[in-house]
């Protein structure tokens, strides 16, 4: 009977082969988690999807934008911002084949794809209790997964932008100006925030919704409503609340303002607004339909054929950028709080 051998005394210490001596509590658990997640992402199916989607984005200028720029280039000598046309020109019949609008549509999906099962996936596999029982802060889990998702998408995005730029420089012989490079960088940064917003939203879903399939579906629905139908919904609400009474500026203004207000909560519109202003310093309404108030203002205020400098463009869309950042932070904080308050057990 083992019970009779009960010892309440300290057992003799184990052999001093101490692998654990002087081991501090790891400082950055999120880095270990991010590294592991990144490794997982790179060999995952969704990474293939990411490569294919953004690869498509890279391919479009080869077929559409390049031709147009070629025909445009001779008469455009001395014109500024030709380089950016690589990202904003395309087949006018298929606007989604333009690099910038394509990214605007695809970025949310990518963000969701890399986070919709972040927490509930661990829960389903039964690895979450084991993970949080390690000496890390609980938010390390969220942070690490967010960083890994953002990193993997941005790496591919930057690679694609570099590819398109290289193609433009080598094959078409157009060299970007400093201003254009800055605009591209600003665009990538804003895109990073936008992807981050959807990543954070996906994380929130993965914390709150217990089943990965459900959270994917909800995320997809949100993308459909906010990105595909965003502008339509803003129009609809504005029209219902404050119908047009006449055609003068004074009469149209209330509705426009309301529409602007609603739009400022719609991430898709915010992002395309910023993109259009950042990548179209010349903003000729004939190049693209003014899809937003910000663009319309820029278009209305411009003296024909002048080009805004980047700081002017940034100034113009600063509120939108701040709104995007605020939405991202909001989503992330919501995911964070929900996760911190959640019980670990299934």
């Amino acid at each position, binding site marked *: *009977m*083992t*019970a*009779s*051998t*009960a*010892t*309440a*005394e*300290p*057992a*003799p*210490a*184990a052999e001093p082969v*101490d*692998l*654990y001596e002087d*081991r*501090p*509590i*790891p400082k950055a*658990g999120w880095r*270990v*988690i991010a590294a*592991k997640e990144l490794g*997982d992402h790179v060999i995952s199916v969704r990474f293939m999807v990411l490569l294919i989607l953004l690869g498509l984005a890279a391919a479009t200028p080869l077929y559409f934008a390049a031709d147009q720029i070629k025909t445009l280039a001779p008469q455009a000598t001395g014109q500024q911002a030709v380089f950016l046309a690589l990202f904003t020109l395309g087949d006018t019949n298929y606007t989604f084949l333009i690099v910038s609008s394509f990214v605007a549509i695809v970025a949310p999906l990518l963000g969701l794809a890399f986070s919709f099962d972040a927490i509930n996936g661990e829960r389903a*596999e*039964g*690895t*979450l*209790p*084991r*993970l*949080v*029982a*390690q*000496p*890390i*802060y609980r938010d390390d889990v969220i942070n690490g997964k967010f960083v890994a998702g953002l990193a993997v998408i941005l790496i591919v995005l930057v690679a694609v932008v570099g590819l398109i730029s290289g193609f433009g420089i080598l094959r078409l012989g157009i060299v970007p100006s400093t201003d254009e490079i800055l605009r591209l960088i600003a665009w990538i940064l804003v895109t990073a925030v936008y992807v981050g917003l959807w990543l954070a939203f996906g994380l929130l879903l993965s914390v709150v919704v217990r089943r990965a399939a459900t959270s994917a579906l909800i995320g997809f629905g949100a993308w459909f409503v906010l990105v595909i139908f965003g502008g339509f919904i803003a129009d609809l609400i504005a029209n219902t609340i404050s119908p047009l009474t006449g055609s003068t500026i004074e009469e149209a203004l209330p509705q426009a303002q309301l529409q602007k207000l609603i739009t400022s909560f719609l991430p898709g519109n915010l992002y395309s607004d910023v993109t259009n202003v950042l990548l179209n310093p010349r903003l000729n309404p004939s190049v693209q339909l003014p899809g937003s108030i910000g663009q319309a203002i820029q278009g209305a205020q411009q003296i024909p054929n002048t080009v805004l400098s980047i700081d002017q463009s940034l100034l113009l869309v600063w509120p939108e950028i701040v709104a995007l950042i605020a939405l991202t932070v909001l989503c992330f904080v919501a995911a964070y709080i929900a996760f911190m308050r959640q*019980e*670990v*057990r*299934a």
Partner: protein
Amino acid sequence: MSAVEAVPAATQRPAPVEEEVEPVIWTSGLTKQYGDLTAVDSLDLAVYPGEIFGLLGANGAGKTTTILMLLGLSEPTDGEALVMGLDPAFEPREVKRRVGYLPDAVGFYGNMSGRQNLRYTARLNGLRRQAAETAIDEVLEQVGLTDRADDEVQTYSRGMRQRLGIADALVKGPDLLILDEPTTAIDPLGVVEILDLLRALVHERGLAILLSSHLLTQVQSVCDRIGIFASGRLVGQGTLEELADRFGDGTAVVEVGLDLTDPAEIERAKGILLRIKGVRKVVAPTDGGDAWRVIVQPPDAEAGVRQQVLATAVAENLGLTALRPIVPSLDDIYRTALKRSAVVRSKS
């Protein structure tokens, strides 16, 4: 009814220990409430270095909740806990660095190998690369998974996963292991292996183990001390003998094998056995077997009775074939403890 009355769990003290030995787990009035439901009700617990402590209770009795509070993964509503002398609510990372935890229904990343899964845990615990590899090899050897270490975990059987789970809890070099239902859903042979492993670990590494289970026999076979849990309360804790004293019916049983077939002989044997001092009752086998049950009262007279039975049976030529004490089964103790705690509660 025994003279020992059910004492409310709160006034109980663990087995006598020298004062200097600091418990690895100590709780006082630890309570966890979910809304109206009290999952853990003012728990007083002490687990000492070098012992295996078994938390015994039905599913939903509050075992897992208790464990989560000890790891700082769930905040107590009231009371306090010290694990390795640290409060898990305030220093969860330091506690989790020193405590290996095997969760109930442990899971692994199926597309990674066992070794990779352990490596991840080692990295999260801040082990340097070389130290991590050495530690991983060592724990894999200990749980007997060295051969399969580089296969993907999704190809593992349930028992292998469980053993990998123990390796995972060990890889950080813990001073305390907390195992939640370590033997659930494992075949009997696997259970024996795991229990042997646990005993060896305590012996080799000198660590303490807190394990929870709803399987009485396992707890009985491996634990030094046992705490019986019922709807959030610890209704008794101590060694099996102590629990038997408190919750037994005040008798002990000796099984005596007598190779007798003649009814007259059987009657004679009965009379002889009944004459031995301390024997309360003798039950002859009714199934044609040879296992007699000799009921002894008080229970501590049991050893003396056994000697007497041996001497008498040889002297009287009763054909003695076996003689062994029947250990009070935890099953009975558990049932009595639950019954009494229910009575105590309905009175209060």
